[in-house]
């Protein structure tokens, strides 16, 4: 049927635009870098931009597609980061080539984060709105706290574990410390590159976009739009909530792996794995458009670069950032202003708005 083809093309076209956008940006950046046009400051931002993009897209799966407010996303990133860094350190030199080891590290981070997503989701997803939000925030803080008291070491006898201090590990003198409590992990092989980051973004997009435009995705969105109606047509609410939540967590874990293998020292601080980070990602998701996957990436990139571009204004930049945030929220929620803006948009937006999940 031509009607079916029209629908298929519209969705596919929209997705292709998103993939193309990422690839084109990659090409442009690589050209700029090889031409020496990129400052070292900007070069240092490339992998973090990929990290934040993946975090934003994965959080949008929970907030925009499943419709649940999660304030603990950084916790899953933390799990991915630490499990993969531990794995990489333990297998460094043992598993060759390095690229294969990194691939395994990515899987380790994703799987552990996903499992935690499942475990946390089971009690948490039963809660209503605001309560769910605060519990996810609580879990994020708990994860960060616990990681800070873990001591892991390896010597000739094997692996030692403690939550008290390094001495209680009882290791040989030649033993190697892997996780040093609040000092975290040092010496993680720096496998992350911009190219790998872009590839991971594309993989994340592939998973999320295809999930959304599938039977499971429809079920998840049905739960978001009307849980009671979804139940009445036989949708297993718990199964699909857990599915969305754990896939979202696993992808956050992947972002964590990318993040961990970009630094020589990995520590769990409030600013990188605490609620501050979770909230920053949430801001990306909301400003990019709830449910708008492409928007999440755009927002993540722009909002991360904005403070850097404002560097000239130095002390004032975070202040300006916060004002921009407040102003954007007020403007985009003001009927009068939005209607005026809509008049300048292409005509098709004015008609009964067709389904958009970009």
């Amino acid at each position: 049927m031509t009607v079916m083809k029209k629908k298929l093309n519209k969705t596919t076209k929209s997705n292709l635009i998103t993939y193309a956008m990422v690839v084109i940006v990659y090409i442009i950046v690589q050209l700029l870098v090889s031409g020496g046009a990129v400052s070292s400051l900007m070069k240092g931002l490339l992998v973090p931009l990929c990290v934040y993009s993946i975090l934003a897209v994965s959080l949008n799966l929970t907030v925009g597609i499943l419709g649940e407010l999660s304030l603990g996303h950084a916790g899953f990133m933390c799990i991915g980061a630490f499990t993969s860094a531990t794995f990489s350190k333990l297998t460094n030199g043992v598993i060759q080539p390095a690229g294969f080891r990194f691939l395994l590290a990515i899987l380790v981070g994703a799987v552990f984060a996903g499992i935690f997503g499942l475990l946390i989701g089971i009690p948490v997803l039963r809660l209503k709105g605001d309560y769910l939000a605060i519990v996810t925030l609580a879990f994020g803080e708990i994860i960060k706290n616990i990681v800070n008291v873990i001591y892991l070491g390896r010597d000739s006898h094997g692996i030692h574990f403690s939550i008290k201090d390094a001495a209680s590990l009882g290791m040989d003198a030649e033993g190697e410390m892997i996780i040093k409590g609040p000092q975290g992990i040092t010496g993680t092989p720096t496998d992350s590159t911009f190219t790998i980051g872009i590839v991971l973004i594309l993989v994340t997009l592939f998973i999320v976009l295809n999930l959304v435009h599938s039977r499971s995705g429809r079920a998840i969105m049905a739960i978001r739009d009307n849980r009671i109606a979804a139940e009445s047509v036989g949708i297993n609410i718990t199964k699909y909530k857990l599915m969305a939540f754990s896939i979202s967590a696993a992808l956050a874990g992947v972002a964590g792996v990318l993040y961990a293998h970009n630094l020589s020292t990995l520590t769990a601080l409030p600013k990188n794995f605490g609620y501050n980070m979770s909230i920053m990602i949430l801001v990306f998701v909301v400003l990019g458009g709830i449910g708008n996957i492409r928007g999440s990436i755009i927002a993540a990139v722009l909002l991360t670069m904005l403070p850097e571009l404002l560097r000239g204004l130095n002390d004032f930049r975070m202040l300006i950032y916060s004002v921009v945030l407040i102003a954007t929220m007020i403007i985009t929620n003001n009927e009068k202003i939005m209607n005026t803006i809509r008049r300048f948009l292409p005509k098709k937006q004015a008609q009964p708005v067709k389904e958009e999940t970009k």
Partner: protein
Amino acid sequence: MQFISYLINGISLGSVYAIIALGYTMVYGIAKMLNFAHGDIIMVGSYVVYIAVSSLGLNPILSVVISAILCLVLGVVIEKVAYKPLRHASKLAVLITAIGVSYFLQNMALLIFGANTKSFTSVVPAVSLKLGSLTITAETIVTIVACVIIMICLTLFINKTKAGHAMQAVSEDQDAAQLMGINVNATISLTFAIGSALAAVAGVLLCSAYPSLTPYTGAMPGIKAFVAAVFGGIGSIPGALIGGILLGVIEILSKAYISSQLSDAIVFGVLIVVLVVKPTGILGKVIQEKV
């Protein structure tokens, strides 16, 4: 005896959390929003007192009063400028705006006062009460007494005054309250005013007991007080009291008997257990969804 000492400290810290939680819970119940910036009002209140006492040499009590008034005004202004335009927007939009306000306050303070930790001079005289082998500081007593007085006053206000009844009405059904002739805008402004003034008081009490002050001092207590409000049942005033006290006690006891680093994790862990067992908090109302 050590235990009693910890317990009292816990109740004192909990009293501070309770006062902060009150602001959260009132605003949530009446304006139906999570004012993420509430914790930062605490910080502002503390800085005002700090400046008043150390730079201007004003009397501590007067400073607290000035701080409460300034924060009251600040709260009302924030509501009018940032939250009122979003009253009919999605809850997520309001939350993000509140986050923006929080960032704004923190960075304003950073600009004005710098990131250096300021040493806060307590507004309470440094005397102690000795009960047998137990030593209780004046700060502890003042904090707990302040909390009790505030709770009593607030409960009386809500139940016995016209403005208090208006608040109850608006929290039940904003549209119906408006149709009954209640000035919803004024009621919401009043809520923010009271909450913010209380935050200032809480900030002063907090910094008197834990005298280091930075632009980020308010954030974590704000989060914990929010947890306490949810713990006790968000929207419930007695719930804020119970939640706050319990949280303070659990935090101090965890620091003392288990681990200082894990105390936050334990506090949050208890919250999770409570909510899993009773999803609307200890005193929360269960709202049935109409099918």
